[in-house]
């Protein structure tokens, strides 16, 4: 029996690992996106102490390796009496960490947002929240599309760190298979193929979104 046959028989293990990775990825980036939008909304308007501390928090997160945040949630929180299991600690860490990156990406685009549109919306009687949801957010999300795509690929790669805090995801599957049958080269090649396929798929989706944005007139040079 060749090494590839052994892996084919263990395909279930890869598949569960892959599904787990995709679950973690899907759940955490959705949460991260919402957190990013919410932070952007909180940063709207005049500077204040609250906004300044939010900025400091975002910058602090961006200076931290992702794994340290996962360590804080998984090993650090139990000291304070909050005990999360590895899976939820991982999803939470990914969501908060990448939420901060999303917020920073949106903020960069918000700085160059045309002021005239906001004045026009105010003249039409839009409330702050309505103006943000209907006018500012859609344009900013479409404009920052390439950066969001990059960030999604970083988030996918960060899910692999969770193997260190014992989450049973895709890399963990390869690790345990290579331990059982001692065929690390083939097992990891399969897993790298999985990651590669997902990031290529994401790149294609982001490009398709570009066409949609152009049709709806959300892009302007």
């Amino acid at each position: 029996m060749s090494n590839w046959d052994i892996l084919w028989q263990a395909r279930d293990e890869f598949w569960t690992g892959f599904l787990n990775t995709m679950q973690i990825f899907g759940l955490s980036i959705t949460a991260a996106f919402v957190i990013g939008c919410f932070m952007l909304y909180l940063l709207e308007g005049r500077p204040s102490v609250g906004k300044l501390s939010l900025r400091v928090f975002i910058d602090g997160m961006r200076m931290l390796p992702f794994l340290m945040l996962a360590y804080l949630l998984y090993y650090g929180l139990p000291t304070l009496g909050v005990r999360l299991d590895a899976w939820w600690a991982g999803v939470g860490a990914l969501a908060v960490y990448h939420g901060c990156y999303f917020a920073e990406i949106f903020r960069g685009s918000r700085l160059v947002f045309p002021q005239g549109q906001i004045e026009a919306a105010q003249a039409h009687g839009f409330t702050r929240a309505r103006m943000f949801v209907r006018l500012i957010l859609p344009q900013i999300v479409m404009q920052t599309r390439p950066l969001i795509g990059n960030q999604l690929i970083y988030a996918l790669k960060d899910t692999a760190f969770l193997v260190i805090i014992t989450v049973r995801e895709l890399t963990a599957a390869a690790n345990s298979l290579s331990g059982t049958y001692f065929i690390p080269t083939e097992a990891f090649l399969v897993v790298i193929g999985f990651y590669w396929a997902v990031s290529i798929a994401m790149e294609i989706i982001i490009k398709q979104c570009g066409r949609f944005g152009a049709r709806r007139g959300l892009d302007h040079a």
Partner: protein
Amino acid sequence: MNASAWQMLFDGAWTTLWISAVSIAIGVVAGLIIALIRLARIPVIDQILVLYISLARATPLVTLALFIFLSAPTLGFGLDRSVAGILALTINTTAFNAEIWRSGFRNFSRDQREAAMATGMTPWITFRRIMLPQMIITSLPGLINEMSFLIKGSPAIAVIGVVDLTRVTNRISAVTYEPLPPILVACALYMVIIGALVWLQRLAERRANRLAT
């Protein structure tokens, strides 16, 4: 935390720093070489490099580190943990650096290249005397940004047993049963290292903008 815990944390920070520094040094030069080879558009080699860059950018560092460390012995050569870690970080960062250098080439002023040709400079002299000095300044912000990404990814080498700034916190909490203090100190140390790089990046950006105007 006692004095030996602090000592261990600083040793871990030192491990993270020197392994990252070696990978950055190799990665910046190797990235430039790959960008140069890709400019030549040699048929088969070009496609191989495109494949390498695409794969290396999509592969998580943890997976890459495990792959290199575990599969090296089955291919007939054993690797030291640190060497495997450096190899993984270098393979990853080289791919990103190659793209940064390549966009530096693409955006290089055509006028200057034509002027160099008109004054009779050979391609090598043009590259060495005209292009490279300016490209270093324009690409530096991107390169430093990639360096801070490398340090943020460096905890991946903890998975193959390198005692870096991340893994050392496990060692300390295994003795003291108090995981929070060493993790917080490690966070602060990472912030100092990456904060320094962010500050350097701002300086580099200011210099690059001065050149552009």
